[in-house]
Every structure is written in C-alpha cells, then in structure tokens.
C-alpha cells in the first residue's frame, strides 16, 4: 500500500512540474513569511480563505482555490471538488482546509482523504455555511471549526466576535427605519430571485429591508414579469453580482424590468451588490451587509459606515486588547 502510494505521489509530483495551473512557482505568498510555529495552509474555498485572512492567518496560506481572488498572488490548487493534488503535494502544507455540504463529508475527493490518512498533510473539512450562525460555527466549533483545526481558537473567537459586532452595530443604525420591500436578483435577465430561508434573506432583514417574495416561501425561484408587476411590487431591487459593474442607462441587465410600473422601476431604485464575496457566506458578510444597508437607507449611509468601522475599536476596548 505504502509503495503504491509512494509511486502515486512520485507521479503526481512529476505531473505537478507541468505548469497546468499557473501561479507563483516558488510557492511563497506575496505577503510576509509564514510563522514557523503555526501550520502552513492550503485553502480550497474562497470562504475559508477569507475567514483565515480575517483571523490574521494570511501569511500561513501557501495555496488557494481557483475561485479565490487572484490578487492574493498564491499558487492555485484547483477547487474543493476538483483539487490539483500534485500542486498541493508540491507545496507541502501542514494543513489542507476544504468545505463539504454533506453531513458525512462524502463529497471530499477520496485521494485527498487517502493522502491525509497517509500523513502527507492534515486534512480538515469545514461544514459549508448557509447562515450567519453557520459562519460563526465554522470559525469556532470545537469539532469542525477553523480555530481548533489550526490550533488558534483565540484568533477564531476574535474574528467571530468582530463579525457579530459589525453586524449588530450596522443593524442598530437601520433597525428603526422604514423597511422597503426588496427583490434580490441573482440573474436579472431571467428574473432569478432569492427567497427566504437563505443567508441573503437573513442579511436583508439585518440591513433593514423585507423580502418582497417572502410569500412564495422558497429559497430560489425564477419569476415572471407579471408576478413582478402584480404581486411582488418591490420598492428596491438588488442585483447580486460579485465583481459586477455599476448599472448604466439602458443597461441590458434591466431589460426584464422595462415597462413595469412597480415602485423600484418608477423611482429607479436598483443597485448592484458588487462585493467579490457577495454570494459566499464568510466573514466578509458584514461588508456585504453594509453595501445592502447603504442602498436601502441612503440617508443613513454615513452612520452605517461609521458603525462598521467602529466595531474593531469597540471590540479591542471591551476585550482589553488586540485579538489578531
């Protein structure tokens, strides 16, 4: 078995020499040097990468997924469901972190598991987050949390508290404001909409809005223009498009809304939520929340941003010093 594994590893290393998935070839992060007392890490999802960065673990990262921000300048190791094993082995991380949406983590690639079983690296599987509470658990849960996985529960707790405080403070600015009916679209050209029971619905409520399709009682659905006109009738339309451009006059993304006499269209209250992690439940959720709250309550924009910025200072004062 060990011989077979050795052969497999040798083959993978040779394959890894072919630069199929280019990235900095020396594997050195563009930030500072990794702390030798902490594990070096390959993250296979952008949500985990973001959480690690917010825990102050940026320098420990030696590899990331292909969905991660390229500006990190780290070697790319495929994705959570299709990792480039050769590249991971080549980087020699102490720890590989990936996500699973299955309770038994059965969707983790078997080769990744067998290499971990053979001690090539340690593998930790974090449960995929579907709510703000899930993100908090992903940081600090004793069994499946990032903090225990990398042996730094303090930083994980700090990141969790900071995220929770940012959300609370932003929510406190808008919670007494009138709540507009909001339609969240993930695909404006086909009117693909976000309903209830999902993270973005939770964020919308915290941003001081109500979901205009709450009565449909479903997570995601495709709407018809007639439904939009007669039953949905949103005051504001948010288009969730990570990295998307601002809307322009005669924007093709708004073609499906033309000719409708709903408040959002009549008052031209539509906006693109552009945050790169707008669709990923991670510690970046408070930033997405700020973007949403500013669109829904433009009269309170300055206060919303101040509340977000104040959170770190408040946390430092209340916990008597810096976390990460």
């Amino acid at each position: 078995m060990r011989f077979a594994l050795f052969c497999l590893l040798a083959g993978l290393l040779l394959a890894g020499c072919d630069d199929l998935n280019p990235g900095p070839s020396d594997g050195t992060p563009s930030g500072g040097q990794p702390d030798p007392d902490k594990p070096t890490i390959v993250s296979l999802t952008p949500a985990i990468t973001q959480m690690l960065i917010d825990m102050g673990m940026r320098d420990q990262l030696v590899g990331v997924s292909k969905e991660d921000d390229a500006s990190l300048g780290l070697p790319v190791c495929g994705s959570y469901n299709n990792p480039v094993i050769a590249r991971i082995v080549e980087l020699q991380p102490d720890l590989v972190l990936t996500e699973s949406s299955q309770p038994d983590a059965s969707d983790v690639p078997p080769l990744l598991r067998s290499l971990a079983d053979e001690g090539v690296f340690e593998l930790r599987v974090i449960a995929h987050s579907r709510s703000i509470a899930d993100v908090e658990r992903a940081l600090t849960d004793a069994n499946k949390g990032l903090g225990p996985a990398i042996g730094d529960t303090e930083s994980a707790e700090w990141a969790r508290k900071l995220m929770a405080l940012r959300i609370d403070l932003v929510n406190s600015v808008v919670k007494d404001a009138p709540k507009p009916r909001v339609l969240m679209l993930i695909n404006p050209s086909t009117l693909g909409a976000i309903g209830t029971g999902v993270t973005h619905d939770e964020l919308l409520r915290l941003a001081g809005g109500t979901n205009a399709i709450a009565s449909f009682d479903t997570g995601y659905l495709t709407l018809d223009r007639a439904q939009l006109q007669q039953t949905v009738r949103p005051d504001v339309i948010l288009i969730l498009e990570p990295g998307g451009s601002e809307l322009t006059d005669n924007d093709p993304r708004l073609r499906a809304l033309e000719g409708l006499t709903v408040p959002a269209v009549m008052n031209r209250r539509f906006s693109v939520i552009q945050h790169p992690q707008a669709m990923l439940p991670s510690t970046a959720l408070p930033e997405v929340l700020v973007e949403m709250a500013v669109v829904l309550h433009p009269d309170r924009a300055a206060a919303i941003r101040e509340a977000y910025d104040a959170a770190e200072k408040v946390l430092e004062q209340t916990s008597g010093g810096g976390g990460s």
Partner: protein
Amino acid sequence: MSRSRFVVAWSVIVLALVSALIARLLIGSTGIGWQTGEHAEILMDIRLQRMAVAAIVGIALAVSGVALQALLRNPLAEPYILGLSTGAGLGIMAQGYLALQLGWATGASGLGAVAGTVLTLGIVFLASRRNGVIDRLGLLLVGVVLSTINGALIMLLNYLAGPGVLRDGLAQWMMGMLQVRPLGRQDVAAAGVCSLLLVFLLWQGRAMDVATLDDDEAMAMGVHVGRLKLLLLLAASVLTATAVLIAGPIAFVGLIAPHLARLMLGPSHRPLLVGAAMLGAALLVTADVASDAVAYLQPSVGLIPIGIFTAIIGGPVFLWMLRPQLGRGME
C-alpha cells in the same frame, strides 16, 4: 387526400392553434381568466408579448425542421442536429467569459450567439462539401461532431469561469426559456425573418417535393438540386439561429411539429410547411401556458423553463409516433 380528411386535418390544426392562443390570453402566472383591475393592461400586454415570442420560436423551429428533413431526406432530422444551438451556446459563454476576464460589461448575449451560430454554420458548410456540392451524410456527421466539440468547449469555459452569474445564466439558457422582457427590435426582426423564409420555402415547395426523389431524377425534372440544398441549409440555419437567440435550445418542437403535420396533411411541402408552422406555434404557446400555470398554482416552484416541458411532453409523443418504425431494423 380525400376532401373530408383534408377538412378534418385543417380543422384540427386550426383548433389546436386557436385553443393555445385563447389559453395564453386566459392563463397567467398571476391568475386565471381575463385580467381586470389596476394592472390589467400591463398584465395582458405581458401575456400578449409572451404569446408572440412563443409563436415566433415555434414557427421558426417547425419550419426549420421541415426544411432540414427535406434537405437530409431524413425524418429524424431536427433543427439542432447541425450543432447550431451548441454553437450559439458557445458564443454566449465565450462572450460572457471574455467580459468577465477583461472587466467589461457583459452586453447583450445575442452578439455572442450570432457569432457562434454563424461560425458553426460556416464550418458545417465548408466541411460537408464534396466537389462543390453539399453531401447529405457529410452534413449530418459534421453537425454531430461540431455539436460535440462545441459542447466540450462550453464545458471548458464553464469550468474556467467557476460558479457565478455566468454559469447560472448559461445553465438556465441551456434549459430553453422564453426571455422575460418586453418585445423589442430583436423580436420584430425575428418575426420578419420567419415570415420571409416561410414565404420563400412555400415558393420552393414544389422543388422540395421533387427533391425527395433521387438526385438524378430530381435534376431530370428541372430542379437544381445543389442550389436547393444550399438554400435549404441557409434557410434552416437562419431559422434555427433565430429561435436559439430568443429562447435557447428547445427540444422536439422542430421534430414533432413537422411529423404531426405530415401525418395529418401528407408529404406535399406547401401544406406541410403551413401546417407545421401552425402546430409549432401551438406547441410552444401551450408549453409556455403550462409554465405559467405551474407558477400560478405552485408559486414556490416559479417559472419552469419551457424547454423542460417540450422535452417531457415531446419525448413520449415522439416515441409513440415512432412505434410503427420500431423493429424494422431487425428485418
């Protein structure tokens, strides 16, 4: 065909179309019956627009199916067999992917679809010619191969793009969906193109009848077979591209509408073209009504892409139509 059978056949076709159009006016995602009240005018406009778009797509697919079946002398030929739908899909995906990489606005997906369709058509045309004449078998084979290549390239771009709007948009487009938007210049142009090509094919109807014979016999009867093949290929391609641009790939309509029309009206191409166009429109409008009815009765399901309906309904219907043919290959 006897006079009584002729009257019954046309009555059934007209009844099917009129029923579909009336159902379209009376059934919507927000209610059943004629719309009254505050938003009645806009809601009826939306139903009329959807009716028009569905009818255009149905006519384009059905007429394209008739032309291709005549061109290939193959009753199983259908509009997507030449790889045009996957070509359009590849164009849309490439346009979106380039925009994503270069940080441009995505723009209207029609541009990519047109480019992909034209490029595929060009390759099909050039690769299937032998001594300046289109080879029927070659055309089929090149179409199948190009479909596979286009499909692989779509998957490659899909993989490289990662999750997001581009992947979601393509997934929905591939299911076949009437676009949710008001009628625009694109739809008016599509209606014009369909009308012109239908009239043109009707004009060529007698030549198409003769072309069902052997090439030499057809030429002896005064039909320039090479030129006719080229014209049929171009007409079918433009009609397919028009349908794909508006609604994505919608299965079976281009196969079933000509078959049903042929069963009722016989093989003569002039009545066949008109009958297939009417049945194609009726089929697509009915599928769209079904999609709206589900959205009304089960709001949490939302609007189901009509391509799913046409495949679910069209597949079994086609199998039923195939029954007399099944087993003949063993003889």
